[in-house]
């Protein structure tokens, strides 16, 4: 038969343990991270998401240390604003892919009036523009202890506003690094972003943010 003192015996230690646990846990989060146990490198990636937005000013604040590949195509310069949200996962073969996401990038050409926009949309694991192609992705650790993601190459819908309103599609690739919070401080960095227009407008290279933030999860 249940007796009240049993409740006392069970609840009191539990309450103490919870209180101690809540007080003892560290309250700060280091921006530096070690590789998680499930990290295997290669094309695999943690099931995670990346979100970000802001501005870079190529080629002024190059993050050469953490740029994975050399410059592809011409140097894109001027102001570039962007926003994105991508969810990563693995396909049947264990390759890292984007399960769903959106990317919007705007290149404000230094010689106004001229502007190019790109949009990438991914649903159910495939690029919505071509309707069938999976979108590859991979992650790597930056020299600052942050986590970077590379999405693509994948098809983007483009729009060059003053080239007669020309609309086009092309292969693009996005790189983004979360190196700490906040993502931008007066000046630039520590987070970084790269946009590669692989057929038409060149490569920003990996640039520290002059505004905004990138978050890895």
């Amino acid at each position, binding site marked *: 038969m249940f007796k*009240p*003192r049993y*409740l*006392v015996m069970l*609840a*009191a230690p*539990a*309450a*103490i*343990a*919870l*209180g101690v*646990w*809540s*007080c003892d*846990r560290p*309250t*700060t*989060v280091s921006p530096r*991270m070690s590789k998680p146990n499930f990290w295997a490198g290669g094309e695999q990636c943690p099931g995670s*998401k990346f*979100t*970000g*937005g*802001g*501005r870079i000013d190529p080629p002024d604040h190059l993050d050469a240390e953490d740029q994975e590949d050399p410059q592809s195509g011409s140097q894109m310069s001027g*102001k570039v*604003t*962007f*926003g*994105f*949200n991508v*969810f990563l996962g693995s396909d049947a073969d264990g390759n890292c892919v984007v399960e769903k996401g*959106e990317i*919007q990038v*705007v290149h*404000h050409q230094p010689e*106004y*009036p001229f*502007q190019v*926009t790109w*949009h990438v949309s991914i649903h159910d694991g495939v690029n919505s523009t071509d309707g069938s192609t999976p979108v590859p992705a991979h992650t790597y650790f930056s020299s600052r202890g942050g986590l970077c993601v590379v999405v693509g190459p994948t098809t983007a819908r483009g729009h060059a*506003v003053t080239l007669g*309103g020309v609309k086009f599609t092309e292969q693009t690739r996005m790189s983004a690094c*979360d190196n700490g*919070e*906040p*993502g*931008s*401080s*007066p000046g630039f960095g520590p987070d970084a972003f790269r946009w590669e227009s692989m057929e038409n407008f060149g490569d920003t290279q990996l640039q520290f*943010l*002059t*505004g*905004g*933030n990138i*978050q*890895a*999860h």
Partner: protein
Amino acid sequence: MKRIHTQWASRLAALGLIVGLTAGLATAGVAQSVSGRAYGVYASTPLGSTVQAPLAVLPAVSGPDGGDMANAESDGLSAGSALSVDFLNSITSGSVDRFGDPSAAAAQSVASVGNVNILSGVITAAGVIASVASTRTADGAVSNADGSTLTDLVVAGTQVTSGDGTVEPNTRMDLPGTGYVVLNEQIPSGDGVTSSGLTVNMIHVVLQQPILGLLGEVIGYQTVGNIIVGSATSAVGN
């Protein structure tokens, strides 16, 4: 007597359990919320209807996998003689939970506009970018407007920026006969500990008309309209 002691002990134990659970959950972090919005222009004038475009609003974000993005764009827009602009883009994104830290959250918004012409040339700019970001970690909540700039801005014949430049937050300039303009208007919110938010309006024109007294003298001014170019808002909190 023994029964009374047992009842009190039970009540104390239950109270301790509640306190412990509450403290544990509080430290573990309660559900975070993020919000964001951005738009290129807003105009509400005595002679025209209200416009606000292109408007991007961050959808509701929640849960450990919460994250989203919204964007809107327009090639050009005009509102009579009050305003004409080109190349409008608005983007906002946000998420909760960073590297398994349930107290973390972030939102960021950016609005960009080109070829700005306000009030038939009273204010012109080659480009405007409004950029804000809000983040919360275990160390606190902060917001900033880094990356917000005005390109080749001229106000009532005065060159304010040459090339891509910034001005001090909440810089006010009078517009005789029209009202005044606030450049890089920044409106903060939140307590800086568990919440933080910021709205930046890069160009905010306040249209005013004089209020006349019985003898026709000016006894004050009333606001009759607003024009905003380049607005971005982000906020985090719980």
